[in-house]
């Protein structure tokens, strides 16, 4: 699939929007307007690479909490995001029952996420079982952090998909930390890709700061999975530029120098430079995008702030399917 200039600009736009939204969330937190934020800064390039490799709305997506850029690419809106951050009425994924970043978007085949890490990986495999039973040519993309790969459920999921050659692309976003713990405390191998090979599926490691390298890797994996060649694991090597969440203080476990070094090689910057070099973007075009992002974000944030909380009694349902009122 050719990556046209337009696609490249759209990818960049999505990354940019994700970044600015995320930064706004941090600002809202500092202002005391929200209580919690978990950030995707540093992951955007890789997520956008994944998003643009699938048939959005046709393929299935089983994401995790850092996937803001991925979700935006799937049609999640800045307003959706703010409603989630603020727990306001009409939050689309859960009616404000879930914490921020616990996405769900049925219209786009995006499945709901819980907080315990890695449970979702098995859901991706179950969906792929359905796809296989129904002889569809759909693919499931599922994401998780590298720390999450220490969970037995993650292993079981990958193993099951490998045995039955199911159409799943397992994306592990390796940002080098699980809260405070470095990768060396999660695994004895140098990359998650090696783990995949031990389970009998291809494992690929790709530079997650390079959106287009990611796109290429995901396109190949998606193509293989769609063609019935079985699952693939793609490790996107990214870096968590922020603390784990707004509750974290990362100064206790990593140096400022380390973080600063990674900021300089950030995926958003790199993509911008590449696209400017290629003539796909001009500085003026980027400025215009920045302006557009700011406007969109200002408006969405204001609208969310103006939205009330759901009535408390709505917490009473729907415990069972019979009680669903808004589905």
């Amino acid at each position, binding site marked *: 699939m050719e990556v046209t200039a337009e696609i490249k600009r759209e990818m960049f736009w999505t990354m940019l929007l994700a970044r600015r939204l995320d930064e706004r969330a941090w600002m809202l937190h500092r202002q005391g307007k929200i209580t919690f934020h978990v950030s995707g800064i540093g992951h955007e390039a890789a997520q956008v690479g994944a998003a643009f490799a699938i048939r959005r709305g046709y393929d299935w997506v089983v994401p995790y909490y850092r996937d803001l850029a991925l979700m935006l690419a799937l049609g999640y809106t800045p307003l959706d995001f703010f409603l989630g951050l603020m727990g306001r009425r009409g939050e689309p994924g859960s009616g404000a029952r879930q914490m921020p970043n616990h996405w769900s978007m049925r219209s786009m085949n995006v499945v*709901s996420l819980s907080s315990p890490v890695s449970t979702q990986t098995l859901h991706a495999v179950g969906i792929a*079982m*359905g796809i296989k039973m129904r002889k569809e040519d759909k693919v499931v993309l599922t994401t998780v952090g590298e720390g999450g790969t220490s969970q037995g459920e993650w292993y079981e999921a990958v193993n099951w998909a490998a045995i039955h050659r199911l159409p799943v692309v397992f994306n592990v976003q390796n940002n080098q930390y699980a809260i405070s713990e470095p990768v060396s405390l999660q695994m004895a191998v140098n990359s998650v890709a090696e783990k995949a090979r031990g389970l009998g599926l291809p494992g690929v490691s790709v530079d997650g700061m390079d959106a287009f390298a990611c796109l290429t890797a995901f396109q190949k994996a998606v193509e293989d999975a769609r063609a019935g060649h079985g699952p693939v694991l793609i490790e996107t090597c990214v870096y968590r530029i922020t603390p784990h969440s707004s509750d974290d203080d990362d100064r206790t476990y990593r140096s400022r120098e380390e973080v600063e070094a990674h900021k300089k090689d950030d995926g958003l910057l790199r993509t911008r430079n590449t696209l400017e070099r290629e003539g796909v973007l001009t500085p003026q075009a980027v400025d215009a995008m920045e302006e557009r992002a700011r406007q969109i974000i200002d408006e969405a944030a204001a609208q969310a702030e103006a939205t009330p909380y759901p009535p408390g009694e709505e917490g009473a349902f729907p415990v069972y399917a019979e009680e669903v009122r808004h589905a």
Partner: protein
Amino acid sequence: MPEITLIEAIRQALDEELARDDRVLVIGEDVGKRGGVFRATQGLYEKYGALRVFDSPLAEASIVGVGVGAALYGLRPVCEIQFADFIYPAFNQLISEVARMCYRTNGEWTVPMVIRAPYGGGVGGGLYHSQSVEAFFTHVPGLKVVIPSNPYDAKGLLKSAVRDPNPVLFFEPKKGYRLIRGEVPPGDYTVPIGPAQVSREGHDLSLFAYGMMHHYALEAAVQAAAEGISVEVVDLRTLLPVDRETILASVRKTGKALIVHEDTLTGGYGAEIAAIIASEAFTDLDAPVRRLCGPDVPAVPFSPSMQEWFMLNPERILREIRSLAAY
């Protein structure tokens, strides 16, 4: 009407549901060629093929987690846990995912699925092939918990479970698999999930039981009748949601309540029933609410002597009936 065994009733329900709805599939260990270690799926693999009667890896978290995915995709998985004792690896999926998918997505996603498991002691199974696990799940809003005591109910309730839009845990008293026979009409019928059943009318006291203990309760009630004590026996059948009406109506009539279960006493399901009665039927009670349950040890020991010590039987129930009736 033909008399069949409990296990045959379950097999029939599965067979007919697989035939009725091509979204139904069975997932579990040894459910395929082997037809299940208790033969609940005998012949189904041959009839419906390896995709719909699916031999899973030896991994219960997977069986349930993949089931969730299949349900999200639109299928109707019936997951088999080989022994209820082995359900714990799936506990995270059951509590974090299965039970709350509907609630956490405000109904955007639901997981219609059945989790079947043989449970209970008296079969020489020792600590890990005898457990009663229902109390872990009757505490979990979002789940339904069903325990049939006879072939008619087993077939009808299992069919209801498969068709229910919610997740249903279906625990089968394995000691009764071949022991308990009963009339079952060939072909389709359902028994609704929810209502308990007054299986024997009486006026001196109400006896609440389920599973194998319901049979012992009936036996004891017959003997009690010979002694002039009129026992009303209620087969709870659906443990969650609790059928408060039937329970309270019976206690209001008799003024005395005895709850019998094989599971250990402290924190068992009987505690909830006792608490409901104590709270809602206080003025109707002529005697303390009694529970006759398994002893507070981890599970049924293997040696026949200790197994017998652990297990309830009609004689012990009769003694409790006499004592309560005399209060």
